[in-house]
């Protein structure tokens, strides 16, 4: 049981952090709001990390955490975390370009009910970055049907993707009508579940990054904002809020990397790297996403409260991260949903 990052992981974190600090400022987020291509230059850098889509889960989480910290408007999640592992599972030749970052993809899985599990709806919902993606990987029905219960996988270009307007503009979501195109392969529903679980942990890592950003902004503000002649961070009412926010961030971080290590151990061929059952993985994933969701919402709510009036304005950057926090909390299962699923696994 070792939570210390390797030297390579420290290097990875430091390099992506430095890159994002320079290339993904709040000004980029604001430009992207009204003009989606404003974030295209960012992808020219982030594409270099796309190979992590099929790389070590802990490394993937390290990058996602940093992306969440800056609320990066980027197809990284859609392309690397969702599309790449499905293409890898069916051995599709497009994978190489996705991993090289020269092509971007996304995944259309959720149907009308918004749940990310196998279904036969042709109306797909909450497809991230569908309009800008070079290819939409579509998961069709098949559970209990033909082809031994496997789901069909097809690709298409989402030229008719309809934007779903949400609180958050940094990760555009779309409804996509999926034509019954020619399948390029089939995937076992359990393998699909495992891919979604890994993407869920990655998204939870991103949420932790966003939560930490909200905490850092609130902490900095509490130290500099003076009222009644002193910094408001000297008041217990503010201090205790910040402590509770930081505790939620700390435990969410720990739950996320525990889940990442659990998934890695389940895949590891060597017993000495640890072992984990499918049940261990599912539990750890639910805990990670639920705990990250709690932390992000907590930091959003108390963050705005600590900022007071200025945090309620459009001009202040806080709301960019509050919006992202709530949008990500709802994607791939809300905190409530993950607790419900976890409850079913406990009984």
């Amino acid at each position, binding site marked *: *049981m*070792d*939570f*210390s*990052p*390797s030297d390579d*992981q420290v290097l990875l974190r430091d390099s992506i952090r430095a890159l994002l600090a320079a290339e993904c400022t709040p000004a980029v987020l604001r430009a992207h709001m009204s003009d989606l291509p404003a974030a295209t230059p960012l992808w020219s850098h982030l594409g270099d990390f796309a190979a992590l889509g099929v790389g070590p889960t*802990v490394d993937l989480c390290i990058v996602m955490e940093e992306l969440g910290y800056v609320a990066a408007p980027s197809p990284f999640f859609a392309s690397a975390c969702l599309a790449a592992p499905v293409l890898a599972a069916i051995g599709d030749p497009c994978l190489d370009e996705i991993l090289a970052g020269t092509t971007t993809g996304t995944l259309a899985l959720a149907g009308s009910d918004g749940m990310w599990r196998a279904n036969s709806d042709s109306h797909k919902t909450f497809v991230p970055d569908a309009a800008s993606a070079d290819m939409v990987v579509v998961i069709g029905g098949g559970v209990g049907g033909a082809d031994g219960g496997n789901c069909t996988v097809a690709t298409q270009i989402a030229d008719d993707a309809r934007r779903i307007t949400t609180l958050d503009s940094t990760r555009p979501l779309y409804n996509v009508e999926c034509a019954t195109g020619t399948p390029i392969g089939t995937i076992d529903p359990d393998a699909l579940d495992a891919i979604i679980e890994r993407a869920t942990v990655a998204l939870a890592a991103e949420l932790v990054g966003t939560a930490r950003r909200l905490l850092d902004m609130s*902490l900095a503000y*509490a*130290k500099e904002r003076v009222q009644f002649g*002193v*910094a408001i*961070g*000297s*008041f*217990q009412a*503010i*201090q*205790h809020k*910040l*402590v*509770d926010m*930081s*505790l939620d961030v*700390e*435990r*969410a*971080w*720990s*739950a996320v*990397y*525990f889940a*990442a*290590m*659990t998934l*890695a*151990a389940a895949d590891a061929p060597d017993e*000495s*790297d*640890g*072992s*984990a059952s499918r049940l261990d993985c599912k*539990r*750890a994933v*639910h*805990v990670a996403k*639920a*705990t990250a969701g709690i932390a992000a919402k907590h930091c959003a709510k108390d963050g705005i409260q600590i900022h007071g009036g200025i945090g309620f304005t459009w001009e202040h950057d806080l709301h960019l991260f509050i919006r992202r926090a709530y949008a990500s909390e709802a994607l791939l299962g809300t905190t*409530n949903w993950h*607790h*419900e699923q*976890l*409850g*079913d696994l*406990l*009984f």
Partner: protein
Amino acid sequence: MRLAWGPAEESFRDELSAFLDEHAPLEASVRYDFATAEGSDGSIPAWSRTWQATLFDHGWMIPGYPRDLGGRDATPVQTLVYLEEMAARGVSRSLHFPGYAIVAPSLLEFGTEAQRALVPAAIRGDTVWCIGMSEPNAGSDLAGLSTRAELDGDSFVVNGQKVWTSYATIAEKCCLYVRTDPAAPKHKGISLLIVDMDTPGVEVRPLRHINGAADFAEVFFTDVRIPAENLVGSLNDGWRLTQGSLAHERSGLWVEGVARLEHGVTGLIDLARECGVSDDPNVRRRIAEMYARASSLRALGYKGLASPDSGRMSPEHTYMKLASSEATSALFELGMDIQGAYGPVTDAVRGAEHGRWPLGFLITFANTIAGGSSEIQRNIIAQRVLGLPRT
């Protein structure tokens, strides 16, 4: 980052398991949530004394210490594996923690040679210790303590009162915090004395806990003469020692705190089945929330071990007492909620489970108050971890 323990840890665990299989008495398997609930008068049963001595003699009492102090020079990670394995089995080392957990490390760090000679017996449990800290007017504001010690020739003369002193009814010795310089700023006039509890002028009056057990006491000091050589550390430097004491008290406790939570979650699942509400989605979701709190805290505890300061108090571990004590309280309250109208019932209506949740709930407040209340913990974290200005 890696889920598995290393081979050195696993073989260490195997060695411990073999020892426990052979030596651990059944009585040492405590019900974490219920250990002191009923009928306890604070006395230490014979099996517990024997068990603690056995642990010491085999080097399993404090594994990180050398052989002559009841250990085996274990690494901090091996010590964590030890605590984890003991907690997983529900095996308690000792029924009185102040001696081995607080007094021993303080005397080793600050004591004279004669005082350090008291340490082995404190760890082995041959000497029972209590810690005289809180007073009626010095609880959270510990530095405001007013029990006076005045130097008179080669003795200190002590007058004053301590309160909520755990184990005072059975202790042979006490680490007593006293005011030696009333003129100095309050943090700078405190000293630490070792007091034999049978010294004339020491009077112990048992106090009952909220659940009825008598595990702590008020202690009155009237013209108690303490030899000057019983001063620990330098005169008026006692505040520094309180800081050390509290750190020692908190650093390894998280493992037991998390184990108590996990044990409680298992209990809640059984309880929901017994009460016929295991299909209620609301009950399932609330139990799942508790499971998630417990397992994320375990992960946070492990993360603390990876900090550069491995083995000492890491920032992560300052969160653990706060978080696990508050979660435990919520967990027991949930146990009452699940039982509906039967929540507060302490009769034996459910066999062995009787009173577990309502009485356990009352006991959980020991953890959110003792050793620094949750509010004081938040102040400490705000200032020392988050770097916020003092009030």
